């Protein structure tokens, strides 16, 4: 298991930032893995939120907030409002905040971001309806 806060990949060269929904707060060129216990999953527009308790390197518990997609995008990615619940042990691969705060983004448009559950099943943010298309 990778340790908290290790940057596991740097997929893109740094580029100009472009605000759409305020995501300039996140470093979308980086991917970080965190592991913890879900405290709340808020299924809401325009962006849903996952909150989880994560132990930092000193053993202190920090509550992280992970911003993700709208219920519409998540639904087409195969999620429901019950996909994550408080108490779930999860690992999330996400884009960290540039300012080092325990907030992050994981969602469509940022390949590789996903949620991995303790039983090994995963949820990502790609549109599953596309799998129904024969080119």
């Amino acid at each position, binding site marked *: 298991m990778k340790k908290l806060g290790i940057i596991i990949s740097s997929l893109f060269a740094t580029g100009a930032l*472009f605000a*759409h929904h305020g995501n300039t707060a996140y470093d979308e060129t980086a991917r970080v893995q965190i592991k913890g216990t879900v405290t709340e999953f808020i299924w809401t527009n325009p962006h849903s939120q996952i909150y989880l308790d994560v132990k930092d390197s000193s053993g202190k518990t920090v509550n992280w907030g992970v911003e993700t*997609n709208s219920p519409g995008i998540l639904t087409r990615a195969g999620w429901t409002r019950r996909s994550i619940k408080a108490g779930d042990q999860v690992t999330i691969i996400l884009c960290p905040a540039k300012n080092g705060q325990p907030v992050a983004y994981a969602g469509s448009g940022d390949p590789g971001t996903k949620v991995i559950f303790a039983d090994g099943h995963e949820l990502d943010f790609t549109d599953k*309806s596309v799998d129904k298309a*024969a080119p």
Partner: protein
Amino acid sequence: MSAQAQWQNPTPGAPRTPDGKVNMTGPVARVNGKPDLSGIWQVEAEPRGPGLYGLGESPNSKYFRDILSDFKPGEEPLTPEAREILRQHGLPGVVGYNLKCLPDGVPHADLLPEPFKIIQTPGEIVMLYEVETIFRQIFTDGRKHPADPSPAWLGYSVGTWDGDTLVVDTLGFNDLSWLDARGHGHSEDMRVVERFHRRDFGHMEVAVTITDPKMFTKPFTINFVEQLLPDTDVFEHICYENEKDAAHLPGKAGR
């Protein structure tokens, strides 16, 4: 709970390959002698380039970012007034109305990273845009534009057929929406002509010509492709439900 996921509802009448998938190159159904444009459409994404970082949603059309991206820098057909508006929209803290949960305009709403649904009926074609859960009516009953339309985010649209291409002529816009994420503006005099050609079951070619003499020194046309999203739906999206971005954006302008 049903075993069927909420998004998995077969597209009615879709041509299918033997494995049950939707044949994206299959034939287009016809109604009353015209192609049926009904379906759920999502603009074809382009690879994310450096300028698209920070969108935080699905990959986008380059025209989502910059409606004038076909022009070389410095050669954009902008009037002095349009250049000043673009400069003001680029100041720190200035954001478009769509980031404050107000609607996107035309053709930006066709270019979003979320889909829209077309419902084609005799005399009217309806577009249901997922973002902001807004609708657009394209009247195909032969009417003309009103003489003095009330300014509207999505304007007033009438549609006619040019062979198998639906030609949507829209005017009566307000001047509030931005044409792209970069911040190009438009005036109430803007006229937008969208030409929709469903070339096969899964693809619709769209050509959009924008004319606005106050903002652009000449009309220009952008071309993109909408892809059918098979076996799914559009969903409610009320942005103001939990909007938290504005408070975190720098500066006072644009609030």
